[in-house]
């Protein structure tokens, strides 16, 4: 006799029988929530928040990739709940057909989906923390460890995971409600067998998609420039809408790829008819998934490219420095002189050589700047006190570099690096001002000199000796300074460099506790106009550096008097930037894993939906090799196209960014792009292995179904 005597027990029994589908749903939710929980935990952690400069590009990029991952996970979970209900619908439909009212089914169904969604989501959130802890621990153990790498979580990240939790549970309950609201019971019963309606997709779709991508890219990129030129105003935020055709185009290209493919089969036009035929019924849902996968692969590529592009040019640049030690300081600071430094070096059994010193002065330089008008427009205006610059004489230039510079009176030369990639180029100064006496001379840009060590945010001008003397007259010590450089005689000593760094930094007084963003000339100009310099307001707080954190990345990167000690820069680079790069490495792992999980799930769904087709083909005499090829074709579309599109797009984007920075690709950047290409090949290999494994699993499942 049956033990099942009421509705509740029957539902429990049916749920138990459905556990295969429930498990798939649980796993999908769990993975999505684990990823978002781990990502948000790391992103919001004090470790990352302290290191990533507020308002900086790296932080914006991190947020952008997070949004991409979040979008991917949202689509994935919505897809998972849809899949769950596709299987569930027959059961619901049968019960409705034999007289179960919606009111009767509602509590059981809600109980089930609420339990499944909330349990999997909560478990995913909880799993995210050990996940991030393990990955971060492995990074520290295997790659880089420093005091800054200590993981300190901020549990405010739970707001993000919590919001996602609500979304998962909400979308599950909403889908349940949507199914029960259907008035046509036959639709509910047949839901599992309903495919997309076949609508003929024109062959124009793909080419038109490419045109849209091109048009959107050009419009999106140039529209802000045109807006500024035409209206003399900053472009409004909504102008980014012009990028939308890129995404529409991408969708169309992918749709064309899965439905038609790009190969023209003149010899055998029936070659791909089976796989293309299957896709006609699920092309759009497959493409939706593929777009998400593309986004995630692009996010992974963007994150991983950050490592070589960011680190290689810095490390190669440090190696190319012509001096081991280079620093500058204000004349009013009591910095250890040559004797003290030599003495310190001896303590570390190091002798020094090639010591050279030169004087510099700080002046106000004129230049073009955009001035905001009240109506949101702006106009370009020449300001006499546009910025602060450091100025050296022809003789000082010779002392430091051994190079002659023929500087004519009334002109200045600007010092840039050998690759001429310095993003701060001041060619527009027409006058220079002594900030103490306010004497002023007219000047004109004459050209570039090259010396990597003298490239920073403030910049150096070289003046004619006589003109330099004239401008230096009357300057107080806080507007004067010295530049010192020397080499280690023999093998350099890291302990010495480290000790000297501490000695050097500790010799400055509080008036030098400034970041390189702080411009003393602009501050005077603004104060004289009765205004408060923006760096002295709350806006400037985020750019402040502190003598309490002289080992922090922010201090070492943004302190206005930061020294260039080559051995320190090279050795400390990974330690200093460890959090930054490890965060991006983590993002890479998370995005790639999510993309591959979605690829795998999608392929299995396609195979599951088409299992009868495969079975029929087998019955019609298709050999195993033919079936294996068809499964492979189905899966390759899902794996290959998004991977290629995502990786190539980001590769081109990075190449474009590197080119746009300074109008050229430098030798360092060529090496970095080469490394990126190597990484892409490795990612391709990983994708290929997952693809092979997916095909194998599907073939096994189809064989089990047939038998």
């Amino acid at each position, binding site marked *: *006799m049956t033990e099942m005597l009421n509705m509740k027990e*029957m539902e429990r029994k049916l749920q138990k029988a459905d556990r295969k589908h429930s498990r798939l749903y649980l796993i999908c939710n769990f993975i999505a929530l684990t990823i978002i929980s781990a990502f948000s935990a790391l992103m919001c952690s004090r470790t990352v928040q302290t290191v990533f400069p507020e308002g900086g590009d790296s932080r914006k990029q991190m947020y952008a990739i997070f949004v991409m991952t979040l979008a991917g996970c949202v689509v994935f979970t919505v897809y998972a709940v849809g899949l769950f209900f596709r299987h569930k619908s027959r059961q619901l439909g049968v019960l409705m057909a*034999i*007289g179960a009212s919606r009111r*009767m089914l509602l509590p059981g169904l809600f109980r089930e989906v609420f339990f499944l969604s909330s349990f999997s989501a909560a478990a995913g959130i909880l799993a995210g923390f050990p996940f991030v802890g393990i990955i971060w621990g492995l990074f520290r153990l295997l790659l880089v460890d420093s005091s800054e790498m200590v993981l300190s979580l901020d549990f405010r990240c739970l707001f993000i995971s919590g919001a996602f939790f609500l979304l998962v549970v909400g979308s599950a309950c909403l889908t349940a409600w949507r199914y029960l609201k259907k008035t046509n019971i*036959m639709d509910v019963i047949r839901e599992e067998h309903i495919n997309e309606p076949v609508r003929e997709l024109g062959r124009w779709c793909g080419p038109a998609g490419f045109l849209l991508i091109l048009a959107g890219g050009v419009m999106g990129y140039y529209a802000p420039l045109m807006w500024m030129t035409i209206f003399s105003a900053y472009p409004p935020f909504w102008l980014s809408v012009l990028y939308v055709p890129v995404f529409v185009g991408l969708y169309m290209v992918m749709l064309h790829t899965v439905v038609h493919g790009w190969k023209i089969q003149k010899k055998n036009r029936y070659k791909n008819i089976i796989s293309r035929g299957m896709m006609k019924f699920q092309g759009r849902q497959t493409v939706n998934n593929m777009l998400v996968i593309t986004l995630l692969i692009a996010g992974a590529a963007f994150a991983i490219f950050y490592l070589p592009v960011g680190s290689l040019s810095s490390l190669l640049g440090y190696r190319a420095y012509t001096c081991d030690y280079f620093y500058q300081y204000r004349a009013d600071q009591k910095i250890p002189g040559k004797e003290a430094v030599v003495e310190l070096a001896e303590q570390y059994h190091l002798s020094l050589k090639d010591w050279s010193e030169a004087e510099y002065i700080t002046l106000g330089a004129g230049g073009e700047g955009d001035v905001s008008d009240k109506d949101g427009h702006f106009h370009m205006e020449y300001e006499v006190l546009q910025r602060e610059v450091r100025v050296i004489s022809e003789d000082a230039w010779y002392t430091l570099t051994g190079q002659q510079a023929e500087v004519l009176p009334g002109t200045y030369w600007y010092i840039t690096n050998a690759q001429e990639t310095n993003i701060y180029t001041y060619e527009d100064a027409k006058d220079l001002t002594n900030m103490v006496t306010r004497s002023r001379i007219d000047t004109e840009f004459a050209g570039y000199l090259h010396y990597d060590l003298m490239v920073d945010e403030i910049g150096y001008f070289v003046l004619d000796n006589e003109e330099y003397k004239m401008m230096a007259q009357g300057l107080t010590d806080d507007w004067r300074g010295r530049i010192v450089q020397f080499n280690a005689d023999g093998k350099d000593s890291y302990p010495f460099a480290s000790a000297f760094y501490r000695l050097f930094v500790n010799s400055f007084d509080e008036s030098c506790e400034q970041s390189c963003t702080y411009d003393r000339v602009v501050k005077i100009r603004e104060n004289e106009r009765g205004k408060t310099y923006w760096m002295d307001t709350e806006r400037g707080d985020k750019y402040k550096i502190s003598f309490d954190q002289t080992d922090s990345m922010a201090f070492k990167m943004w302190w206005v008097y930061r020294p260039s000690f080559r051995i320190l820069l090279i050795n400390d680079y990974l330690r200093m930037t460890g959090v930054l790069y490890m965060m991006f490495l983590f993002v890479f792992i998370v995005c790639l894993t999510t993309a591959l999980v979605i690829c795998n799930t999608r392929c299995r769904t396609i195979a599951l939906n088409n299992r009868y087709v495969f079975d029929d083909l087998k019955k019609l005499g298709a050999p195993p090799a033919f079936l294996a090829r068809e499964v492979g074709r189905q899966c390759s579309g899902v794996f290959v196209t998004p991977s290629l599109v995502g990786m190539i797009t980001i590769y081109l984007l990075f190449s474009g960014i590197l080119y746009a920075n300074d109008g050229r690709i430098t030798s360092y950047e060529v090496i970095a792009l080469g490394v990126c290409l190597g990484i892409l090949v490795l990612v391709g290999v990983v994708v290929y292995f997952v693809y092979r494994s997916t095909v194998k699993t599907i073939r096994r499942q189809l064989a089990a179904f047939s038998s």
Partner: protein
Amino acid sequence: MLYVKNLYKSYQVGKVKYPVLKGIDFHVAQGEFVAVMGPSGSGKTTLLNCISCYIPFDGGSIMVGGVKLAGQDEETLAKIRNTKLGFVFQDFMLLDGLSIRENILVPRIVQGEVGRDAEQLAERLADMFGIGHIMDKYPADVSGGEKQRAAVARSLINSPMVILADEPTGNLDSKSSRIVIETFIEAKEKMEATIFMVTHDSFAASFCDRVILLKDGTIYRQVEKEGSQREFQDKLLDAIREMSA
């Protein structure tokens, strides 16, 4: 028992409206076994789905045991489906997670608690239809014919006024088809069940008391049973040939 009056139903595909049923009128008396036949697209299944309250209809009226279906709320329609109607589908529609016994009892479970009387009735029905030995098996473990007989038993568990069957032999071989039809006849004779069946199969229809022939959404002709089953089948085939011409 079942009255259908001036029934209209159309489907909207995009902007185009396709009329499927164009004023259908008929009635089925208690204990009568009626079949509906017609070519594909004639509206057979749509008619059955309207009577089953699975899909709403545009106009006309359907009455089951004196209750009008039009204008009823969801709750009442569900109750009608559960108590006044029994269903047999082409693809059986048994729930895979439940045993055959549990599947037969599902309409009772939907009503609430299942008592001993319901279990005994399920046993009796199973014995009557020759599936007593598979009561504890699951749908995946039994043949198509056995599944369909279980579905017929399920349709009778609440002693409905009308059993609605949609192509009940469509997925079965001839031997199983015959057994299922005999099951219906047994239900009609022993339980005075009223059966309304949609079918393509003239052999299955030849066991009925009356056959309604549908063509393009209207009743083309109704054929009453006369003579033996074989003679009735011949008569039906002639009528179908005439309709096709």
